[in-house]
């Protein structure tokens, strides 16, 4: 390119005459086309020509130039255009002023030469409008004069039109011309100006019309005037350095564009990375369409599903599906047969069941039942599981029985039969009734298999019997048992028949009498027991009193239990008797049932009695009989048997009190004592009442005659006459003060320390010690004065450091916070869901970074952020617990405000 340009330039140099003319034309053009942006290129080209010519041009004689001018007239069309432009231009003084220098600057290499071809003038073109153009020039010059008044222009004014331009140019670049010559002489010059590098002029060109352009241009000219030697190229290192510098500046600038974005992200309370997540297929259909059969089964299904025929049938009305649905005849037949067989089997089973149900033979059913039972029992024996189940069932039955008492003659049928009387019934009914009762007893009986703790009573007793103890022990045990029994019997006596014959007054009286008698007897018997027991103990004392007592006590407890049980039973029996006093059978039954149990309970009692008989010389028969009677005799009489046997035993002892002391008072005995107590109470009541009265009386009598209302202070003084509260308080306070601000220890001389001679002793304590003590004292005084309660006489304000509270305080102000208040504010409001409405909890608790695991987070993408925009924290706004270091105070305050808004 550069080569080409150079060539062209050389050509143009050859025809300098033409170039000269062109220059003129150009000048006019330049003068006129000011703001003509379109023409700018053209101007460039022309001026380039001008520059070229300038090298040789300025030295042509005027005459010659004129001739050349005449030879080369200007193109008309362009001139016209330019004229119009000029007219427009004329008005603009300022622009013009700038245009002139442009024309004057004789710069070469400014414009592209090649494009010039467009405006090359034909050789024989006549320049007819030259004068007019000159006029224009005149005008321009004048205006220029007015505007600028630069010397060069003034000089030019007087000159002729023809050579004015050349002269002007010469005047301007007179000096430069020489320089150019010099340059021409320089062989390197061709290279220098031949290259197509962009020059300063090129760079200046776009500045046309800008203020300050002329100044700049002048300076450039001046620079150019001075022929400066070319600088040697910079060393590579420096060049690279400059490059790097530029690159760094550039990249710095590029990177800075991220700043608002980064700032926004950093200041946001939360950044979200879980948004705009492409979850892939969202609909079931889409997922299903992606399904690929993998297993054999799936493939088979898929082959059926994607069968063309089936698909087609589906796509149509579906009626063809029926055709495709083929089933073999054998299959259908098979199925039918199977169904028929099942049906017939069911029918037969049903029939059989009906038939069996219809059979009325009891024997058959019994046998059936038996069979079933047998089967069940064998099964139970064989199978522990079944046995367990059976046991469970039994247990349930028992429980049910206990709850419902179904077999206790409570049914309508049983009641009716009982009402009519059992004797009136036939054998079968009676048997049924008894069977029922038996059932009840069976069901309600406590089962040994259940490992009851209650049923172990006897076992324990037996164990005790088996225990290797002395005979005396056994004897004592027996005795205590017997005693128990008697006591129990005595206890039982308090029950009185409420209805029936026995409730008649005379009967009651008789009963009472007899009871009292029996009671007496019982007491006697008890005393006997006691004495015999004592005897035993006496003999036993030496051997093992401890064991003995413990043993006795234990036995006592056991026996008591037993006795209570038995009494209960008897009571219930009584009740039964009372209600069904007419029937004989039933009580008997009851008793029979009872009998079993009671016998079991009292087995040892018999033994007791025997032993007892042998030990103490009592009349054994009576006792034995009595106990047997207790056990054996039917209900109502049992209690009285005791009283019957009692008179026979004839020994009396005076140990009534002891018996009473045992707390087993007979009702008769209780009654009087109660009465006595009542009396006593009444007495006491009266006593207290009278006492109060007395007090009242004293008071009234004391105050009435000369009562004078004492003053409040007096009263208080009198009330607290004894104690001096204030002094106590002061003492307390002093104590606390001493504790909190301890008094400095008095300096003491440790004996032996620093006492080489007697000198020190004479001097006393060293001065520094005293001083220290003084200081400590002063300090203490200050500390006391500084206390909050120093001036409050009646108050103690503890200034002890609370260790428990200390853990709720930070030692220093945490990092992002700038002041204590701000920090405290930041933790003032709770953030929990219990303390905040659901709408704000989320915002309060939101973490700084919200992301989902499993979602790839891409690096940041550039987006325009308006830095002056208030950060839109906005939707998700709320808590701002930022770790950033700037202005945490402001942030927290913001937070507070937000909260308030919420």
């Amino acid at each position, binding site marked *: 390119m550069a080569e080409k340009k150079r060539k062209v330039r050389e050509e143009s140099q050859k025809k300098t005459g033409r170039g000269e003319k062109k220059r003129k034309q150009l000048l006019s053009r330049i003068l006129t086309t000011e703001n003509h942006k379109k023409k700018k290129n053209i101007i460039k080209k022309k001026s380039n020509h001008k520059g070229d010519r300038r090298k040789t041009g300025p030295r042509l004689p005027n005459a010659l130039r004129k001739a050349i001018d005449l030879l080369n007239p200007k193109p008309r069309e362009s001139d016209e255009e330019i004229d119009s432009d000029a007219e427009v231009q004329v008005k603009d003084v300022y622009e013009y002023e700038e245009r002139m220098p442009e024309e004057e600057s004789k710069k070469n290499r400014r414009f592209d030469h090649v494009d010039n071809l467009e405006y090359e003038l034909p050789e024989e073109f006549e320049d007819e409008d030259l004068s007019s153009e000159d006029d224009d020039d005149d005008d321009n010059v004048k205006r220029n004069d007015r505007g600028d008044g630069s010397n060069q222009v003034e000089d030019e004014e007087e000159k002729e039109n023809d050579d004015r331009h050349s002269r002007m140019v010469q005047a301007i670049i007179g000096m430069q011309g020489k320089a150019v010559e010099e340059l021409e002489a320089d062989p390197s010059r061709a290279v220098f100006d031949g290259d197509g590098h962009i020059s300063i002029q090129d760079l200046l060109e776009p500045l046309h019309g800008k203020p300050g352009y002329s100044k700049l241009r002048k300076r450039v000219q001046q620079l150019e005037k001075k022929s400066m030697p070319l600088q040697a190229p910079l060393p590579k290192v420096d060049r690279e350095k400059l490059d790097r510098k530029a690159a760094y500046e550039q990249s710095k600038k590029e*990177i800075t564009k991220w700043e608002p974005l980064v700032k926004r992200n950093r200041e946001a309370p939360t950044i979200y990375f879980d948004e705009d997540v492409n979850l892939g297929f969202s609909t079931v259909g889409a997922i299903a369409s992606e399904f690929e059969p993998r297993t054999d089964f799936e493939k088979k299904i898929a082959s059926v599903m994607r069968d063309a025929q089936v698909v087609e049938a589906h796509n149509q009305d579906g009626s063809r599906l029926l055709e495709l649905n083929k089933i073999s005849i054998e299959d259908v037949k098979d199925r039918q047969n199977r169904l028929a067989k099942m049906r017939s089997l069911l029918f037969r089973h049903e029939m059989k069941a009906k038939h069996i149900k219809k059979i009325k033979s009891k024997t058959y059913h019994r046998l059936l039942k038996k069979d079933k039972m047998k089967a069940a029992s064998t099964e139970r024996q064989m199978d522990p599981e079944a046995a367990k189940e059976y046991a469970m069932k039994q247990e349930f039955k028992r429980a049910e029985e206990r709850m419902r008492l179904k077999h206790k003659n409570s049914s309508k049928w049983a009641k009716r039969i009982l009402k009519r009387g059992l004797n009136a019934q036939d054998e079968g009914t009676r048997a049924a009734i008894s069977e029922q009762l038996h059932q009840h007893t069976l069901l309600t009986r406590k089962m040994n298999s259940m490992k009851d703790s209650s049923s172990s009573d006897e076992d324990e007793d037996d164990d005790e019997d088996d225990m290797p103890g002395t005979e005396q022990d056994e004897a004592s045990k027996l005795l205590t048992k017997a005693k128990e029994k008697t006591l129990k019997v005595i206890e039982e006596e308090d029950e009185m028949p409420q209805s029936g014959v026995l409730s008649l007054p005379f009967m009651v009286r008789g009963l009472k009498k007899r009871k009292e008698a029996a009671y007496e007897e019982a007491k006697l018997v008890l005393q006997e027991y006691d004495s015999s027991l004592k005897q035993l103990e006496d003999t036993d004392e030496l051997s093992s009193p401890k064991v003995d007592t413990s043993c006795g006590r234990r036995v006592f407890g056991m026996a008591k239990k037993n006795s209570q049980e038995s009494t209960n039973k008897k009571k219930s029996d009584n009740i039964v008797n009372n209600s069904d006093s007419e029937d004989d059978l039933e009580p008997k039954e009851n008793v029979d049932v009872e009998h079993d149990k009671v016998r079991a309970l009292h087995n040892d009692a018999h033994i007791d009695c025997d032993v007892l008989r042998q030990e103490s010389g009592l009349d054994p028969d009576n006792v034995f009989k009595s106990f047997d009677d207790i056990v054996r005799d039917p209900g109502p009489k049992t209690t009285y048997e005791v009283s019957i046997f009692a008179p026979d035993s004839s020994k009396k002892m005076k140990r009534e009190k002891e018996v009473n002391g045992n707390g087993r008072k007979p009702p008769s005995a209780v009654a009087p004592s109660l009465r006595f107590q009542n009396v006593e109470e009444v007495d006491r009541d009266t006593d207290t009442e009278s006492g109060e009265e007395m007090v009242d009386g004293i008071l009234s009598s004391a105050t009435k005659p000369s009562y004078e209302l004492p003053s409040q202070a007096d009263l208080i003084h009198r009330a607290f006459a004894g104690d001096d509260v204030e002094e106590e308080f002061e003492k307390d306070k002093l104590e606390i003060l001493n504790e909190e601000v301890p008094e400095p220890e008095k300096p003491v001389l440790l004996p032996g320390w620093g006492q080489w001679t007697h000198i020190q002793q004479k001097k006393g304590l060293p001065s520094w010690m005293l001083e220290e003590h003084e200081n400590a004292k002063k300090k203490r005084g200050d500390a006391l004065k500084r206390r909050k309660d120093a001036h409050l006489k009646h108050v103690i304000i503890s200034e002890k450091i609370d260790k428990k509270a200390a*853990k709720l305080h930070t030692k220093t102000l945490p990092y992002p916070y700038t002041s204590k208040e701000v920090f405290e504010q930041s933790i003032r409001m709770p953030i929990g869901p219990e303390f905040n409405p659901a709408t704000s909890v989320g915002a309060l608790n939101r973490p700084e970074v919200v992301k989902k695991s499993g979602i*790839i987070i891409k690096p940041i993408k550039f987006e325009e952020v308006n830095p002056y925009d208030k950060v839109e924290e906005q939707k998700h706004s709320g808590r701002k617990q930022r770790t950033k270091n700037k202005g945490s105070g402001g942030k927290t305050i913001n937070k507070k405000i937000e909260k308030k808004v919420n």
Partner: protein
Amino acid sequence: MKVKVISRSEDEFTRERSQDLQRVFRNFDPSLRTQEKATEYVRALNAAKVEKIFARPFMGAMDGHIDAVSCMAKNPNHLKGIFSGSMDGDIRLWDIASRQTVCQFPGHQGAVRGLTASTDGRILISCGTDCTVRLWNVPVASIMESDDLSDNSAKPLAVYVWKNAFWAVDHQWDGDLFATAGAQVDIWDRNRSAPVNSFEWGHDTVVSVRFNPGEPNVLATSASDRSITLYDLRMSSPARKLIMKTKTNSISWNPMEPMNFTAANEDCNCYSYDARKLDEAKCVHRDHVSAVMDIDFSPTGREFVTGSYDRTVRIFQYNGGHSREVYHTKRMQRVFCVKFSCDATYVISGSDDTNLRLWKAKASEQLGVLLPRERKKQEYLEAVKNRYKHLPEVKRIVRHRHLPKPIYKATALRRTMTEAERRKEERKKAHSAPGSMPTEPLRKRRIIKEVE
């Protein structure tokens, strides 16, 4: 007469579905609840304790290499995939979920020093001390199809043999270029067999190179002359060099803040720099007791993970001076490379003991699907803990970490040393003319100069 009655719309207290929670109406008047702060404090304390109890960061180890793992690369497009290269020239693709090798890439004759994958995850680029750069096709297959071990080794797409050994490679984000580091920095196009550009500034070996993911034409390298250099591909020229007192082993750009990068230094610290102001570090991250070998930023840009020669992996906040977390196991040796997973949930470390280890980024995080209520609860506990973290009890629990004895001792020793240095400096200053010894902050102290 107007009778005032309570009127409530039924919508307020009826549930839409039977599974919905019953709405509880509360009076939020703070005067009614005076103990709320105490309640929250206790909750924070409990949360801290519970967090400590549930802190079980180690997920599993991936063994298979027969030499130390020297480099790793994550697949930017596939969460489960991670590539690892070892000192014996073995390259493996792991499936993190099953912790098994999916594929092997045999071919390198010497140690593999650099690995990187293209942004779309299709092409893996490796380089090593055998002076070759190899491009591989990453198999799309999952673990299920690669059960038979016979065909799970891939062949390279291309092998470019070059003049010098390579130390590192990194791929441009969303582009075709990648850069290798060795005797000089070469910029390659994936489709050409020779570098399209190469930069040489100084004569020392470049040991690491990293493209800026946010600004894909900017890259940073560190060299064995203790320098960190920035390059701009738009100007196709180096931009700036920073020389520190010790070598930088690795660099990582913050993916969310394109102007910031953090350098893992030989002097046990990491230095966060703003690329525009290299005269001083933004932050110094201290805690390691031996040279930091590798660093990788979390994709969230809020934290980064470092692996160190002291056999620990640490996680730092991007602006935190001390580590948030330290991971170590008895068997883990010098850690040569670490990576944060693309979802910022896991951390993977490769160490001298030939194993890759998978860690949770948050030690006590509950993995798996969280129900919304569960998530809310955890968020609340986290918030409460964060609020009271300055109080001594909570702080003690939250900050407590068990350290291996050697590291603990080394930490103590380092502390003593820095303390002694500080004291000496103080005394020197006290005994010299005022103003003659200006205090230089740590952020500047380790910088020698900035070269234009």
